Each structure stands twice: as C-alpha cells, then as structure tokens.
C-alpha cells in the first residue's frame, strides 16, 4: 500500500463473501501507522477486489467496529483488521 510516514504490518481477516472475493481467508498487509478509515477501506477494496461489497461491510480494528469512516485509525505492528460483510442466508 502507498505510504508516507511510518508503516506497520497488520493481519487482515476476511469473512463470508469477502473471503471469496479476496480468494484467501487472511493476509498480511503493510499499512500506514496512521490512516483515515475511508482511505484504508479504498485501499483494501482495490487490493482485494471488494468493489461489489464496499458499501455493505463491517470493518473492524482489533475486534471493534470502525464507526466513522472519517476517523483516523492508529495501527500498531500486528494489529488485526477484519472485513465482515453481512450474511443473509438461513
């Protein structure tokens, strides 16, 4: 991912449809230690082919929902990011 400033390595976990689109259940990604959530989302969408679900997913940083996409996220090395689209089947 493009950077200016310090970069950290984080674990990205993909659930349900995002796992199919990304073709992997998990990945490791270098991200800027500080990044606005919406920008982070755009980068993940582009890198992992998530365009079709970009408006319908939960992005969770260390098991906490990122509520506001205009917030700045602070990452530490080894943090966890989860991409969770809704499931509707039953």
């Amino acid at each position, binding site marked *: 991912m493009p950077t200016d400033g310090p970069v950290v390595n984080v674990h990205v976990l993909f659930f349900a449809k995002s796992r199919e689109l990304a073709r992997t259940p998990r990945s490791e990604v270098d991200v800027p230690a500080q990044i606005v959530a919406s920008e982070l989302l755009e980068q993940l969408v582009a890198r992992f082919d998530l365009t*079709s679900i970009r408006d319908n997913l939960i992005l969770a940083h260390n098991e906490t929902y990122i509520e506001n996409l205009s917030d700045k996220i602070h990452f530490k090395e080894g943090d966890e990011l989860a991409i969770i689209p809704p499931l509707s089947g039953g």
Partner: protein
Amino acid sequence: MIELGVEEERTKLKREIAELRAALYSKEQSLLYLDEIVSAAAARGVDEDAPESPTRTLHTKLTNDDIARYSRQLILPDFGVQGQLKLKNSSVLIVGMGGLGCPAAQYLAAAGCGHLGLVDYDHVERSNFHRQILHSETRVGWTKPDSARFALLELNPHCEIRSHVRLLNRFNALNIIRSYDVVLDCSDNVATRYLLSDACVMLQKPLVSGSALKMDGQLTVYNYANGPCYRCLYPVPPPKESVTNCGDGGVLGAVTGTIGAMQALEAIKVIVGLGDVLAGRLLIFDGSTSLFRNIRIRNKRPNCHVCSAQPLITQLIDYEMFCGMRANDKDAEQNLLSVGDRLKVKEYQEQLQTQQHLLIDVRPPAEFEICQLPGAVNVPLAEILDDSYIKRFGSQLEDKDLPIILLCRRGNDSQIAVQHVRSRFPKHSIRDLIGGLHAWTNTVDPSFPIY
C-alpha cells in the same frame, strides 16, 4: 418393456402434478397478497394473524409436570422457578422455519416457552432435511409451519404454537409481530431482514438475528437495550450480485444448527433477564476453523432512518423494491440472451449430441462432481470470465465450425458465459442450454440426478 413405459408415465405424471402444484401455489400466493391489501385497507377484521386477546392466562405457579420436565434447568441458580415462569408466560415469533428456525424452535419449545409463532410460506421438500431438522420424510409437501408445529407438539405438548403460513410483507408484518415479546430472524433473504428490523423498531421488540451460509454464521440481537438496529449497521442494501443463497452457495446443517441453537439461547436470556445478551456485539462463527469471534459493533446511528430520534421512515415500505431483490431465496430465471441464441435440451440431444462439438459445463467443480453430461468438460464460470480457458482449449477454439455449447445447473450462469465467450470469439457458434441440467432431467432423462 411394458414396465419401462409405465415407469416413464409415472415420472411424467409426477412431474406434471408437481408443476400444477407449483402453479396453484403461486396463484394462491398472489391471491393472499391481494387479500392482505384489501384487509389492510379495510378496518382490521377477524383474521388468523390478529393478535391474541389480552386475556392470555398469566401463570404464577409451575405444575408438577413442569417441575419434572424442566428440573435440569430449574436447578440453575440464575434461572430457577422465576426464570421458568417467565419463559412459560412468554411468546416468541420465529420467522423462517428453515435451517435456523428449526433448531431455534426446538430448543425454545423444549425449554418451556409458553407460546411460539412460526412464520413461513414455503413447503417441505427433500433438500431441506439435512438442516431443517423438524421436518421429515412423511411431511413432504406440508407447509413448514404446520410440519414444524407437528414435530414440536410431540416434543412438548404444553407449548402453544401458532402457524402463520404467510410470506411476511409490509401489510401483514406489524399485525403478526404485535402480540409476541421477542422476534427471531431466521429468514433467508435481505428484504425480509430489513422488514423485520424496521417492524421490530416500530413495535419496540428485541430482534434476535441469525444467519448462515456455507461454513459461516453470524448472530446478534438488534433493538435491545438501546442498541443498534439492522439499518444502523447496513443503511444500504447490498447489490443483488453480492448476495449468495443457500441453494447456490450451499450450507452445512451443523452450521445453521449452531447459530439456530444460539438464537434460542439469546431469546431465553432476553426473556428471563439472564447473563449478558449479545447486543451491541456481533458474533461471527467460522465453522471451518471452529473459531468464534465477538466484534463490538456500533451504537445506534444518530441519523438512522428508522430507529433514530427523528426517523424518516415511520411506516413499513416495499422491501423488495428497496432491496431490488425478492423476499425469498429462490433463483429467478434470467433472460440475458434471446431465445434464438439458445438451445433447448431436447434440440441438443436430438441434433448435436452425436456430432462433433465442445460441451462446457460452467458449474463449480464440487457441483460438476455430483453429476455431468457425457463428454462435458468442466470450466467453472470464474475461469471463463478471467479468460484462463482460452489457453486450455487453444487449438479447438481455432476451428470456427466447431459448435460450442455451454451449460450449468439452471441456465443462468451459462448465459453469462455465452456473452463472455462470444465477445472473444464472435465468429463461432456459441449457445447455452435453456434450463440447464434441471431441464435435462425434466425433459430428456428423468433418471439424471437433480439437486
């Protein structure tokens, strides 16, 4: 030879009966829908979904049978007699009597929930049994609520159970939900999930929402203790193409069972006031690694269209239109190609099967392994769309006179494949089989397996 003829005739009659049933059913549904519009417009008269009279007896004592039956949960310190009485006086509505609804209903009835309402419009069929564990072979063709009710009364005759054989919609939802304390979303489609969430906000009912697909499950309780609703999390419905249903994606019964049983648990906790209800958290279950995760989800969205202080939506809307999807998990037949660009399975069998041609089955490998037509090669749709098939068939594709036939399970994906291959090879004859393998079973070879 006579027997062979009889067998064919039997198969044909069975098919015709099934088709007539389907046609009758669809007309009945249309009539029901119109009836509901009429009855919603008119003053609310007597109807089977109407709330029960408020004279429902309030139990203040357990019977000896209750004590014997529920003894193993009665001795739980946090549950006890008061918990059992609360459960006995409670009413829970379960929407969807499928893979989630069956185990949820089973545990609620068994635990002594006094009143259950079961909503489903569908009928029991064989492909349900692997996960919809209340239905059985002897009740194929029954409505799901009636079949489930039958099984549940065997389990616990003291449970009062109402069947609502209905496709829940904006005209009937409030009327049905009103008389229940807790609602379980065990549905299988996006439109019903928005409908239930909105209706539960309007009626202030907690909504225990479960879902499952393939090896994954999700669970949370919406609209509870000032927590968010479904719309707070997902203000915009997902695009149709990103939604997979159980019929296409598959699902393991033990996965829906896990989530369904936990929906019953959350409902019991809400009713009894026990433990920490799974509200404000989303439980994510990955059956393939057996990992459970809890994600802390957002608070109420301050500008939520339904549950905020200034809601924009104050009555139920047309959820099929809002979502651009039907309120069921059935696949609609698509018509991307004109009829002349397609081939009937009978025509294929009579005119092409004996000639040189390239027959490409675009289903995923797991489905190809179940059954395949003679001479078919498997190229999953994804490999068609990313053009990796071109290398594989390089020399055969040079011959413009070699007809190419694409097929799939029902004749939808094969049309997408035709469009794509044709754009690469505009001079070739490229067609697909109308109705896919289902049509093959129905019109050419009744012994060909159907799934």
